[in-house]
Structures are given as C-alpha cells and as structure tokens.
C-alpha cells in the first residue's frame, strides 16, 4: 500500500493510508498516514464498532485537509484494549516453542508452493486473455 500511495501522489492524486504497521509504512515513506495501534487487520477501526470506524475515517479526512508536508503521521488515540499484551504475541519467536517453529517451517514451504502455483496460473490466464 505504501508504494501505491507514493505512485498515486506522484501522479497528482492526494492519498492517505490507514494502517497499523507503523514501522513498515514509515520506513517506506508515505505522504499521509493514520496509524491505529491495533492488531493487523483493523486498519479502519474496531470490528462491529461504527463509532471507532467513523472516528478513524475522520482522522484521515483531517490529514487530507491539514498535513503540511509528506511523512505526516497521526496516531489514533483509540486503544485496542485495556491491556497491551496483544503486542507481544504476533510472530514473536521468543513465545513460540521449537517444535512449533519446525511445524511452521513445513507449513510455510507448503504455502509458498501453493502461492507459486496460483500465481503461475493467474499470470498464464492473463497472458491468454
């Protein structure tokens, strides 16, 4: 998404990204970024919470109206939960047993193979079309 925002902006379309992977987005460098400190998958607000989603979108609007320069990030004041322990879990090798790591390696190789096959098929169909 960061690359896409950059491309559109360079071609005259103002953009704002809603996201939760702050380090990745800022590492790339984007024009405007609304950072929600939520687990990945909730970039537009909390599930089943229209108030949260509306407030997140309003931050995006305010960014479009007021960002003075590129690399402007605003952090949503919303909290995912009272506890911040969720931040310790995502793909944290310190919390995954060795046996589980080995299992995931096997699964990941399978996923990669499927992904490659699907990709090859999709590209092949595009060429035919």
């Amino acid at each position: 998404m960061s690359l896409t925002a950059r491309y559109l902006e360079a071609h005259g379309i103002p953009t704002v990204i809603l996201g939760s992977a702050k380090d990745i987005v800022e590492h790339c460098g984007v024009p405007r970024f609304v950072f929600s400190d939520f687990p990945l998958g909730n970039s537009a607000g909390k599930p089943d919470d229209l108030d949260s989603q509306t407030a997140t979108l309003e931050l995006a609007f305010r960014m479009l109206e007021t960002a003075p320069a590129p690399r402007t990030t605003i952090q949503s004041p919303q909290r995912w939960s009272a506890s911040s322990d969720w931040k310790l879990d995502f793909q944290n090798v310190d919390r995954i047993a060795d046996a589980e790591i080995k299992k995931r390696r096997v699964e990941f190789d399978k996923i990669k193979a499927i992904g490659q096959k699907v990709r090859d098929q999709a590209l092949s169909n595009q060429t035919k079309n």
Partner: protein
Amino acid sequence: MNSKQTAAFTEEHDIAVPYMQRLRDYYLALGYSNPYRWAQYADVPFTPLGITLDQARVALITTAAPFKEGAGDQGAGAVYNAKAKFYKTYSQSTSNPGFLGISHLGYDRKYSTAADLNSFFPLNALTAAAQQGRIKAVAARFYGTPTNRSQVTTIEQDCVDLLALLTEDEVDLAILTAN
C-alpha cells in the same frame, strides 16, 4: 529515575509493534536466511488537496480479495490461504461490494477474525460521510490491489493499472487501507 518514579508509565512493550524486526527474526528462526528488503525511500511525493473535501470524489483502495470459487475458506477466522490471492488490480461497484476477505494476508489471527468487513474496508463510514456532505461522493467503484512480493511488479504493473481506473472514474483523492 527509579522504579517508583516510573510507576505511572505504561509497560515498556506498549509501543508500536516492531514488525520488521519481528518478521526478520521469525523467518530466520524458520530457516530462511535471506531477509526481505522492505521498501525504503529518501524522498516522498506530496500533492496537496487543492479542493475542499465536500467537493471531492473519494476512492477507496483495498488489499482485500473478492471471493474466489474453489479456493477454500476465505471468511472470518480462516487460516492463511494462499489460494485466495489475486495478481491483478480489480475494481467493483461500491453500491454492492459483496464478499471481501483477507484470508490471503498475514493479519493478526489471534486477536482479529476479519468478521467485520468495515474494520478493514470502511465503506459504511465513507458512505455515511458522503450522505452527511463531509465529502462530495464515494467513487462508483472501489479498487483492489494485489500484494505482490515483487515491488517492481507493484510499481510497474499494479500501480499503472490502478491509476488508469482512478483517472477513468475521475476521483479526487484516495483512501488506502492496509492489512
């Protein structure tokens, strides 16, 4: 400071999750020794919004995928599903978006189920904003972009296709939701 003076602070881990380091360590632990190079630029383009929002036709751009027949479970709580991936920019009507899933993406499956489409695709909130006059309109279509591992493909193919669609639909600005 001693521990008493810092007692009112939040926990040390209560910061933005360091995903780049997490993922680097994770794939190293799995045995992959060639770490992914994340996109990184010194310069960032910037186009100021030259109109007011109530004059703007707004595009919504997502990495979510339409339902793919025969590709297995793609709904709420689905395990990672590479079969559900797509490889070409698409567009669909915003008046009837249908099913959109993120089973093909690496979101946080412990704390998120992707059950509410609007937590990663804020079409309801955007439509309400148009009805309330905060923006002029939601574009007639929304746009889906692939999450290719190849950054060159993203820029030289997917972005080109996307810009053509946005130009055709005469959008004034774009809201992009990452996952």
